[in-house]
């Protein structure tokens, strides 16, 4: 049921008034790093982001964390505040799976706009690769699927996405190559990023010939698992100036969410997923006053190759069913129509939800992406997806203030 999207004028006015910015980013080493705990990564990433902004730890007065897949805590944000040694005025844990990182930006903005905090540290870190076995990752599906009506049939996490992929291939006469092309582009981009886990070039044939995990998805259709942390600092242009932040500021232009289902059992059809992605995107686009054609660079949630195609189409970058050819023609590569995940994404760089998607979007808009720099990148879109393409969040970021 696609309900009408209300006017985004109020949201637009709030963002124009407060001029919310990302003023610092940090990423630790990513990969197999067995000697560091989840809270170590969180602390290290926070420190790097604070130093990147050039501010003091005591300047930070808000904290948003997510969750750990390794160290389960009842109150994640305050557990980390204690470990890191600070007492934020505002604190919150966002736990909407892969939609988390993108929504951290939005939640920080809302906290700032409502006077709860001035400088919000958003951070996630985990020793996922070293801390839980691959069988533990396969069993993570239990947390997302229905433990009583789905899990007893042996559903795995890749299997859940394979269910969506199979239907997509059927509805749009798409082919395995179309999915594979997404992984190929992500790998190509990861090859240009120093801090990326998998850089060996990959071909469409390599993906299709890789081990079958859950048909139609192969090993390279699935994201990697890694250890590491990443963080970003959200504040206002005024506060950034007051603190003497020298780094180029990246402005929040719009945000939105869209929900489809939690359990695949209750999914009506693929259009229900598209509607959720579209709703999330449209809220952000209408707030920002821009359209898909105005986006210079996109960061799409790529936990599996299928999600990128659904998001390209749902967000309105290409018509439904045309994401595959778009990917296969290499049009998501740097220098082409719409560069996507210039850091290599979850398929090749590192898996920390969309944290690195936000960090790379900021890096690109700052013009600091080095060999990966997209020329004249002024508007970036970041989209997160949690559950099995069930919960969506989108932000639009700009190089200049929203006008």
């Amino acid at each position: 049921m696609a309900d009408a999207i209300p006017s985004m004028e109020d949201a637009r006015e709030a963002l124009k008034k407060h001029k919310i910015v990302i003023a610092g980013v940090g990423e630790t080493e990513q990969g197999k790093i067995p000697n560091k705990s989840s809270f170590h990564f969180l602390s290290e990433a926070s420190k790097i982001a604070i130093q990147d902004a050039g501010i003091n730890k005591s300047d930070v007065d808000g904290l948003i964390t997510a969750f750990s897949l390794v160290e389960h805590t009842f109150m994640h944000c305050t557990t980390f505040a204690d470990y890191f040694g600070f007492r934020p005025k505002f604190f919150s844990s966002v736990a909407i799976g892969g939609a988390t990182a993108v929504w951290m930006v939005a939640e920080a903005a809302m906290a700032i706009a409502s006077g709860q905090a001035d400088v919000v540290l958003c951070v996630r870190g985990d020793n996922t690769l070293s801390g839980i076995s691959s069988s533990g990752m396969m069993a993570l599906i239990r947390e997302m699927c229905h433990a009583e009506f789905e899990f007893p049939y042996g559903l795995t996490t890749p299997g859940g996405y394979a269910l969506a992929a199979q239907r997509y291939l059927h509805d749009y006469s798409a082919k395995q190559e179309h999915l594979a092309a997404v992984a190929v582009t992500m790998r190509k981009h990861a090859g240009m990023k120093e801090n990326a886990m998998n850089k060996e070039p990959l071909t469409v044939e390599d993906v299709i010939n890789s081990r079958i995990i859950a048909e139609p998805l192969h090993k390279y259709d699935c994201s990697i698992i890694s250890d590491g942390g990443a963080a970003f600092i959200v504040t206002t242009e005024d506060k950034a100036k007051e603190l003497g932040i020298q780094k180029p500021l990246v402005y929040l232009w719009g945000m939105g969410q869209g929900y489809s289902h939690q359990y695949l059992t209750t999914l009506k059809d693929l259009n229900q997923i598209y509607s959720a992605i579209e709703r999330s995107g449209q809220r952000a686009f209408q707030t920002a006053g821009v359209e898909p054609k105005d986006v210079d660079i996109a960061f799409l949630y790529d936990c599996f190759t299928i999600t990128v195609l659904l998001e390209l189409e749902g967000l309105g970058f290409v018509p439904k069913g045309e994401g595959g050819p778009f990917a296969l023609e290499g049009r998501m590569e740097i220098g082409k129509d719409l560069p996507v995940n210039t850091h290599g994404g979850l398929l090749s760089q590192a898996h920390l939800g969309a944290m690195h998607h936000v960090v790379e979007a900021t890096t690109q808009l700052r013009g600091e992406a080095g060999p990966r720099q997209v020329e004249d990148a002024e508007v970036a879109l970041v989209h997160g997806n949690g559950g099995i393409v069930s919960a969506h969040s989108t932000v639009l970021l700009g190089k200049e203030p929203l006008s």
Partner: protein
Amino acid sequence: MSEEKEYAKPLPEFRPETKPYWEACKRHEFVLPRSKVTNEFFFYPRALSPGEDMSEDIEWAKASGKGKVWTFAIHHMGPTKAYKGEPPYVVALVEMEEGVKMMTNIVECDPKDVYIGMDVEVLFDDVTPDVTLPKFKPVKK
């Protein structure tokens, strides 16, 4: 009891509102919950109708047990150690004649022969003395 080793795959943990479903499965009867206010079927079972009516007046209606494969994924790896060494199996979403979907396994056929739109019907797999899982097999033409 047979000499087969103990069933080690994940089992459903019944909730008060889902128990009638599992009890019917144990009797090899296929039922689906329906709001008595709207007469609409829903699945999975809940204590209140997920419709606008939010009704607690739920009935367990005898269902056809017939449906079509809406999508499927051939699993070459399972979620737990208990699946180790097992041949590939099919996890599917079946759209029932009553309009609701359910997740299940397609059995009694080669996974390669499963297709979207395939007509399937329920069978009951007594996996433990307490739990019977409804699964689906192709309808013989």
